[in-house]
């Protein structure tokens, strides 16, 4: 669906933000795009949606270069940015003036989600909190029914009940014909939602694997004394949780935060384990 080939990007007069990025996003998956602050997650989202143009390489959706911002390309994609302003209109009017550009837009879906988010169609967007505005945009993005939905830090600004509501809504929104990419540095928020992890570090993709492969290759938990030396990465702060190569151990519960930290701190060891694994979900 969305393919990124040999992509480089830097803002004018600054160091490279992204280097040699090769990624493929396929339908039926929810990708978690993780990275520390300033690692280029938002930039990559903007490049994927055609809001920025690569310095080198390209990003295409079904073969259409996103930097050209063609109508057919844009009809396949919707971006929920991290920080945004919406016009001072009623929610219903906001929907009316923007939905007509998306051929598969579902009004029922939009108004259903607005109701689920406990908002009213007569609410004026300018009077809503940032979290509520984010819910309006998330509802609109889901209702566009674009095959690719990009969300940049979607849980920022949402309160705790809203975060679990978001996970519920997203889980229901994704079907076989859709692909969702969620960029965040709040790894725990998306633990139960994603099925593919992509991690950026030092302007490069350092990890890109489906969760089922991760479960197959790695074991997360407190090691027995005999495994003490086999640990790839461990954290004393969470009761000594460790990542170990799984081998013949039983499947463990995935700890995304531990995986993220492990990838950043023990990258060569983890890379070695995944060396012969193809990037397929």
């Amino acid at each position, binding site marked *: 669906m969305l393919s990124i080939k040999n992509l480089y990007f830097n803002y004018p007069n600054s160091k490279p933000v992204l280097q040699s990025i090769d990624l493929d996003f396929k339908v039926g998956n929810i990708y978690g795009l993780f990275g520390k602050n300033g690692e280029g997650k938002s930039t990559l989202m903007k490049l994927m949606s055609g809001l920025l143009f690569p310095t080198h390489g390209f990003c295409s959706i079904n073969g259409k270069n996103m930097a050209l911002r063609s*109508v057919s390309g844009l009809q396949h994609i919707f971006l929920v940015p991290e920080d945004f302003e919406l016009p001072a209109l009623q929610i219903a009017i906001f929907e009316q003036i923007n939905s007509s550009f998306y051929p598969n837009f579902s009004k029922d879906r939009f108004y259903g989600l607005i109701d689920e988010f406990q908002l009213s169609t007569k609410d004026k967007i300018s009077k809503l909190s940032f979290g509520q505005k984010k819910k309006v945009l998330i509802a609109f993005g889901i209702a566009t029914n674009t095959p690719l939905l990009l969300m940049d830090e979607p849980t920022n600004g949402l309160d705790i009940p809203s975060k679990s509501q978001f996970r519920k809504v997203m889980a229901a929104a994704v079907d076989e014909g859709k692909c969702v990419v969620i960029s965040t540095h709040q790894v725990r928020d998306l633990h139960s939602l994603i099925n593919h992890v992509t991690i950026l570090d030092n302007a490069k993709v350092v990890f890109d694997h489906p969760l089922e492969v991760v479960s197959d290759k790695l074991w997360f938990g407190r090691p027995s004394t005999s495994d003490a030396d086999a640990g790839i990465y461990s954290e004393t702060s969470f009761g000594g949780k460790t990542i170990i190569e799984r081998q013949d151990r039983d499947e463990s519960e995935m700890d995304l935060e531990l995986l993220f930290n492990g990838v950043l701190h023990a990258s060569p060891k983890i890379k070695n384990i995944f060396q012969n694994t193809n990037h397929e979900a």
Partner: protein
Amino acid sequence: MKHRFSGTSVFQFIRRDLILHKATLVTGLLVALVLLFLFCWLNMLWDQQLATSEFFGIFGLFYVPLGILFTFSLTKEFNNPKANHLFLVLPVSVFERLCAQWITTTVLYTAVFSILALAVGTLAIIMGIITFRADFNLLSLFSAPYWKVVQLYFIIQPVFLVGALTYSKNRIGKTALALGILFLALLFFNFILYALFNHGYGIFKGESLGSDAFDLASADFSLLGKWFYGLVFGPLMLVVAYLKMAEKEV
């Protein structure tokens, strides 16, 4: 598909722009029409009449600046880093966006403002007849002064559209400054050309060189100059506006 053109998309985009900027447009129109009424009405205080040329002189004072302000207002979303993502990722081609914004800020705006201004002008004449015993004059859009003002607006509006798309802060001031510098440069260029080609004929007296230069350069448009400024300059600026839109990054 990058260059797709769909009338439906253009119509939907015009509708979107008008709804988004309804409050600004209505307020601007009301202020301009009230001022237009007062200017027209008070104009009849001196000579008890409002000639067609006088009316369209006053009309131009409001029609052109309001149109320019409306152009800047309409492109505000384009340059707002927190709002332009929604604008730029809408599945509408650059050509459709440009057509929609041009139609809204020129054709639609001119039609609406002209009809309302004509009604306000007629009302001012009626008020003038009642209060100042002014002469009746039937104002009409089918008059040369009206089309001159409209022509001027259609030529300069694309320049301001380019300015509105280019600058993100102090947009009106920067565009006016750029236009002023461009005008002075053209004036100087015209004068140099005129001087080069005509100096041998002894047309410069010496003592009034400065005023001669201004008069000649601003009044003496050649056929080529008229053709360029009247027909090519506006569309050329629209091409620049198209490229500005296509190359926009957030």
